């Protein structure tokens, strides 16, 4: 059930889709993973860590 719902989200039947730009040739699946890694990296730098006192308080 949940599987078929998820499967409906992205159709994996058939050939993959590719992003072309000059010599760069990468599947949208891989490109999405790279974008998610960049987003997670930036979030890890800026999202406040629970329980951490802010700099002003520690002064």
């Amino acid at each position: 059930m949940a599987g078929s719902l998820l499967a409906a989200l992205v159709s994996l039947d058939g050939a993959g889709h590719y992003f072309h730009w000059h010599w760069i040739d990468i599947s949208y699946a891989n490109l999405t993973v790279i974008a998610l890694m960049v987003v997670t990296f930036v979030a890890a730098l800026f999202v406040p860590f629970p329980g951490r006192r802010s700099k002003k308080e520690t002064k």
Partner: protein
Amino acid sequence: MSSTEIDRQWTTRLRRRAARRLPPEKMLPDTQPAYVASWIYVFGVTTLSALAVVILSGFILALKGPQWWHVSGIGHFVNSLHLWSVEIFFFAMVIHLWGKFFMAAWRGGRSLTWVTGVVTFLTSIATAFTGYVSQTNFDSQWISTQAKDGINSTGAGSFFNVLNFGQMLMWHIVLLPLVAVILTGLHVLMVRAKGVVPPFEEKVEAR
């Protein structure tokens, strides 16, 4: 035995050295410096946890075999668990690597920590590759026949033949995971010995 003789024994020397470099309170510390309270420090342990799931799910796949993971419901589930924990492993490892790169975490005598990280990364790629060609399905056939010419052209084909299923499986479930786990162990021990790298010094304004 005289005490100088005892001092010269390799067991004595090794024990003293280990106790000096990694006393229990460094090995399993109670607290961490304040700067570690940031999400960017979470990705090393995320990688480690994902690796644990990869190994455990791999053990179950090895116990039950391909006929099980290709056809049964639970087999599919454990197979997926193995694949997706690998995805999380690489995802977290890359963010960990970026984080350590931008904080130049090889500072203060931590160069071997960085180097073991790099070698673990490369070993993990090889482990994932041999896993893809060990699936026993059309995907693994396709990947091995696509990869063979490139790999053979490097000369590595003389001892690493991607069309040799038995050999690829052995690399995947014995040799490469062993190396990856040992390197990971050394990596974490080195982090414990040195402590987490301090951030770059802030420029403090005179006031």
